């Protein structure tokens, strides 16, 4: 055996030697083309990253401000940033904005809670039990192709124009991404780990708890992200249905009176709420997925 290795070694040695003879010497005569590898710390020197990232948005606001001050952008088309800030301050002072935000946030969260628990429950049934898969999966795959927004007329007929259709719309929208991702997560758990769990003597319930569910968690969180994105979209659509409170209501009112400043405030609030929720999920991922080799968020 050791003899074999020796033979292989000399063979490689010969190849290497003949290589330097043919190409190496001519290259060496001309000097070898080199490049310097820059250390990471050197390449990020200069303007801090966050400052560079902030400069874009700041520039946009600046241009917007100049355009409205010079009258290039009429107030009826789009109010300037100064007006938007002052009307936001007004709305906050009267407490209108906080109340609207609260109502909208609650709608989104209640819808998500309902849709999410339905989606996750169905995914667990389909992922863990053969019978569940046969009954549920085909149905869910069929239903998921229906665009949620197309259901609004039906939802209004079924639930009227109160809170129910708005929440139902959000619930419908959020159930599917969670179902699909949790189900896929369960089905894709590393089968070698399941085997290992069985050799460790884990019962079926323990296997689900210690192996299958943690293994499906990364996918579940991806599903949660999608669901939150959709919850927001569904909220905006839902609040167009005759709202009497919430951001959508504020917007509808502003539209009646051509208050573009209030509309912009509402848009900004939608964006901020979305960012806040996204931040929450990111934090959740950081905490729950720190074990992942692929994860480098911390």
């Amino acid at each position, binding site marked *: *055996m050791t*003899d074999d290795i020796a033979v292989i070694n000399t063979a490689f040695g010969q190849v290497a030697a003949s290589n330097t003879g043919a190409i190496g010497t001519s290259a060496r005569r001309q000097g070898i083309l080199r490049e310097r590898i820059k250390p990471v710390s050197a390449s990020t020197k200069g303007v801090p990253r966050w400052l560079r990232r902030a400069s874009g948005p700041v520039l946009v606001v600046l241009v917007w401000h100049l355009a409205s001050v010079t009258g290039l952008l009429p107030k009826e088309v789009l109010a300037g940033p100064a007006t938007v800030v002052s009307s936001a301050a007004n709305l906050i002072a009267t407490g209108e904005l906080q109340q609207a935000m609260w109502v909208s946030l609650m709608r989104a969260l209640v819808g998500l809670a309902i849709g999410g628990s339905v989606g996750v429950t169905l995914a667990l049934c389909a*992922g*863990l*039990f*053969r019978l569940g*898969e046969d009954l549920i999966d085909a149905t869910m795959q069929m239903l998921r192709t229906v665009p949620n927004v197309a259901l609004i007329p039906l939802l209004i007929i079924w639930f009227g124009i109160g809170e129910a259709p708005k929440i139902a719309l959000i619930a419908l929208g959020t159930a599917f991404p969670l179902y699909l991702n949790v189900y896929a997560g*369960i*089905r*894709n*758990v590393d*089968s*070698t*780990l*399941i*085997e*290992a*769990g*069985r*050799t*460790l*003597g*884990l019962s*079926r319930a*323990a296997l689900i708890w*210690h*192996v*299958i569910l*943690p*293994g499906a*968690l990364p996918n579940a969180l991806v599903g949660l992200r999608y669901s939150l994105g959709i919850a927001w979209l569904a909220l905006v659509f839902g609040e167009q249905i005759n709202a009497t409170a919430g951001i959508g209501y504020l917007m509808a009112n502003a539209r009646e009176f051509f208050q573009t400043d209030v509309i912009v405030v509402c848009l900004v609030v939608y964006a901020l709420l979305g960012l806040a929720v996204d931040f929450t999920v990111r934090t959740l991922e950081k905490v729950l997925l*720190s*074990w*992942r*080799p692929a994860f480098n968020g911390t």
Partner: protein
Amino acid sequence: MATGVQWNLITPEQAREHQVQQRQVRGAQAVRVRGLTRRFGEREVLKDLDLDIAPGEFVALLGASGCGKSTLLRILANLDREISGTVDVAARRAVAFQAPRLMPWKKVWHNVVLGLPGRQDRTKAIAALEEVGIGHRADVWPKVLSGGEAQRASLARALVREPDLLLLDEPFAALDALTRIKAQSLVAELWQRHRCAVLLVTHDVEEAILLADRVLVMKDGVLAHEETIAMSRPRNVASAQFGRIRANLLGWLGVHQPH
């Protein structure tokens, strides 16, 4: 979609039957296999195979890649039941695979005691990790372990169950040469202390001769050759007797060396 997540439940009767089967083994051999046959489609990977392993005996199983070594080990580990023949195997058994197969979402010490009855006993886990020389890695995620450390953790997880039978499927194959030598002597040492029966699947002839009381060579689905290693431990790879055994086993594996 055969990911193995969904599987058939064992009925209580089946489970009890299984326990009865396992109780019969007590006092006799750690492994007793008679007429074991395993087919994949038309192909018989194991053909009417017999195997006995005495309590505390260290058996190495050699064979060319794809000859059915892992198939046999998986059957002994009760991971594969589509078989014919009788298989009696110690109820307290543990397995270490070629890949460490630690749960990446559990800290190392949680991995070690996973599946043990009762509360998660940290001191027990630490003691097992100390024994394989990585007590200081108890509180890290498996992702930060080196290959050798992960394999040691996997050994600790197997040994903490105090098995009567330890099944090892090429546990050192993925390690670098230096780490492998250390891991081999660790296994020898652990076996001396625990005195459990061991079935070590390997394709490394030297490893088999170094560690085992008895070396089996598998070929065409049966155990074609058996070699009892009477050398005293620790064994010297350079000795003449070692060389003779190695040449003989390599011959059975179809490798013929000059001189």
